[in-house]
């Protein structure tokens, strides 16, 4: 049967099991929005800004593990998606972003709302397609979803000229996808896995260093098995939080710039680092010349280009974390590492995350601790900045996909729309959005669809009236010259929430934190926004200054 290109696209999305598509309408995408009108299988979620649409698709993907889909028109619609696409790319999130393009005969003529979106997005996507003819659409959709979710996941862009959306073609959806130039390696080399097992057996001070790749590969169970079988202490990065329960005695918590002293000291003293789905990011390693200087390194990663990029590796293993860990678990055993474990425990007890409680002002860390008390099972979507670090430090994550944040690109404004996507993807879970006053206002408009859909989001703003992380750096490294970080002129977020039709509360005293959280719990028919006015100049510690070695961590209080 002949269908319009737009209808072929929508039918293709159905074949891929797409539940939601987040979008903003516009001229060059109108046929697609028309095909989605009244559609019940693929539900269109109108967002207020294309950036919100891309983050919502991303949040949906992070929370569910399925491919998130965003839709925008050509030109400015497409360029507004860009930040969300780059965010997803840096964190390897499976996403398909669909953009309308001007008519084929206008392409290249600087037509109204024309933009070379393929050119603009080339370095920030896994792959991209420009479709000029309706009969290409079915194959491209199938390929795009296959590429987005297999191997190292990532965003794929489908740019469709308006005439290709309008013209009719035969709908023939491919049953299987076979791309001769794309064959991701799943299984690790057995010889390399055996070498890894041999190193683990000899090590006296081994440590596991797991990252977001474990979550992406759904390999948390295998990681837990490896950790429990070997009793090797483990640190999980910002992107991997929840892959191993932070409440477990072997958990050293997050490493790196604002990580635990224990994890950072462990790197410095370790004789074997076993990296799984983590990429030796500069925020983790600090000064590379001082990073884990005594340790051999095993690196398990699906992306060969990630191995040896920053740190020389002794045993590289290219493969899917789930597959490789399954094999490794079959042959792994450890030497006597009791003294090492005792050392880890000593560091853990001596240097916990800590802050000074105050009686007259709300401490941001206290708010996070209280949120954890009330919402320990929730999906937590954080934004970027000081609140993100405090949330990572003081909320104890126990399950994968429980913690969503823009770790790689560090995109402020990510969290509110991502929380919308997460809530739609996981309707039975409570979704808590921990936001900052700077990041919240970057995508505040997405409160509108959250109110419209009556999503029971808990939006908790850690409001210090500053672009806090930048202010912290200015305090420490720029002589307190607070350039462009003073946000005291922000509107009253509680009142503003009410104007949006949400519940808005403001908390200014430590005694009011608990009652406000209690009240928020009872509100289930729409979003509740609590504006926590916190200590303005509290800093995030511990801190490894940029360029310093992990051993030179500034502990803060202790």
């Amino acid at each position, binding site marked *: 049967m002949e269908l319009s290109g737009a209808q072929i696209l929508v039918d293709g999305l159905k074949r891929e099991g797409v539940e939601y598509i987040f979008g903003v309408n516009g001229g060059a995408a109108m046929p697609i929005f028309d095909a989605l009108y009244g559609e019940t299988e693929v539900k269109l979620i109108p967002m207020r800004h294309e950036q919100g649409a891309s983050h919502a698709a991303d949040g949906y993907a992070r929370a569910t593990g399925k491919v998130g889909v965003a839709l925008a028109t050509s030109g400015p619609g497409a360029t507004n998606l860009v930040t969300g696409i780059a965010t997803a790319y840096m964190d390897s999130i499976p996403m398909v972003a669909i953009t309308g393009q001007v008519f084929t005969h206008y392409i290249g003529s600087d037509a109204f709302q024309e933009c070379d979106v*393929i050119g603009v997005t080339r370095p920030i996507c896994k792959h991209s397609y420009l479709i000029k003819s309706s009969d290409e659409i079915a194959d491209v959709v199938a390929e795009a979803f296959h590429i987005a979710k297999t191997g190292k996941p990532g965003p794929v862009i489908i740019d469709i000229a308006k005439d290709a959306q309008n013209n009719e073609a035969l709908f023939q959806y491919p049953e299987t996808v076979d791309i001769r130039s794309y064959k991701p390696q799943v299984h690790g080399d057995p010889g390399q896995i055996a070498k890894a097992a041999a190193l683990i057996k000899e090590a006296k001070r081994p440590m596991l260093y797991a990252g977001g790749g474990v979550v992406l590969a759904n390999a948390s169970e295998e990681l837990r098995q490896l950790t429990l079988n070997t009793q090797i202490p483990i640190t999980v990065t910002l992107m991997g939080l929840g892959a191993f329960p932070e409440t477990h005695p072997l958990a050293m918590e997050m490493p790196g710039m604002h990580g635990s002293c224990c994890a950072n000291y462990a790197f410095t003293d370790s004789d074997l680092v076993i990296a799984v789905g983590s990429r030796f990011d500069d925020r983790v390693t600090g000064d590379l010349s001082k990073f884990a200087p005594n340790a051999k390194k095993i690196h398990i990663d699906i992306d060969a280009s990630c191995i040896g990029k920053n740190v020389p590796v002794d045993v590289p293993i290219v493969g899917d974390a789930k597959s490789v860990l399954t094999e490794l678990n079959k042959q792994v055993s450890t030497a006597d590492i009791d003294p090492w474990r005792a050392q880890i425990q000593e560091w853990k007890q001596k240097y916990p995350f800590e802050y000074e409680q105050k009686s007259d002002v709300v401490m941001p860390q206290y708010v996070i601790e209280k949120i954890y008390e009330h919402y320990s099972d929730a999906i937590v979507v954080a934004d970027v900045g000081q609140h993100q670090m405090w949330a990572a430090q003081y909320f104890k994550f126990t399950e994968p996909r429980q913690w969503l944040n823009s770790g790689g690109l560090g995109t402020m404004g990510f969290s509110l729309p991502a929380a919308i996507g997460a809530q739609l993807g996981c309707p039975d879970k409570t979704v808590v959005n921990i936001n900052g006053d700077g990041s919240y206002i970057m995508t505040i408009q997405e409160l509108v669809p959250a109110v419209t859909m009556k999503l029971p989001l808990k939006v908790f703003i850690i409001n210090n009236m500053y672009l806090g992380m930048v202010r912290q750096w200015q305090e420490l490294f720029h002589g307190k010259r607070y350039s462009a970080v003073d946000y005291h002129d922000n509107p009253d977020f509680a009142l503003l929430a009410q104007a949006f039709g949400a519940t808005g509360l403001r908390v200014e005293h430590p005694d009011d934190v608990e009652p406000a959280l209690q009240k928020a719990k009872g509100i289930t028919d729409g979003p509740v926004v609590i504006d926590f006015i916190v200590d303005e100049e509290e800093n995030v510690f511990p801190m490894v200054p940029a360029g310093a070695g992990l051993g030179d961590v500034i502990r803060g209080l202790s």
Partner: protein
Amino acid sequence: MNPEERHIFSVLVENRFGVLARVAGLFSGRGFNIDSLNVAETHDKSISQITLVTHGDAQIIEQIYHHLNRLIDVIEVTDLSTAGTHVERELVLIKIATDDPQKRTEVLQVAEVFRGRVIDMKPASLVLEVTGDEGKLKAAIDVFNTYGILELARTGKIAMLRGSEK
């Protein structure tokens, strides 16, 4: 700093719109060097061959290899400098002013030495075609330079593994 090495990559790609931009963008975006680049369709119309000369230390070369492989449209990457012995050639067109007959005779003699072929001749200039590896072309260009090169165009290197190595 590790020593820099020159490497020749043979990259088979889908013969498709935008593939060259992806390869070139990868190099510029990640700060890798392109010393020479040649792209053309192969005997299989659906496949193009990119021959790319680059340089960098061992770690950079490894990164280049992996990042090329990561591109979806890349079918196969071979580092010819490590995969086995290979042959390489480049073709250059050189236009030289030959306004006086004496100079023309000399240029033609030099061309003979480098097995160059005259492919165009006008009263005041001629165009030579010279083929060879990097060393030979450099030598030829150096000599022709003394006669005054009006215009020069080269294809960029192409290369292939010897015999049945693949």
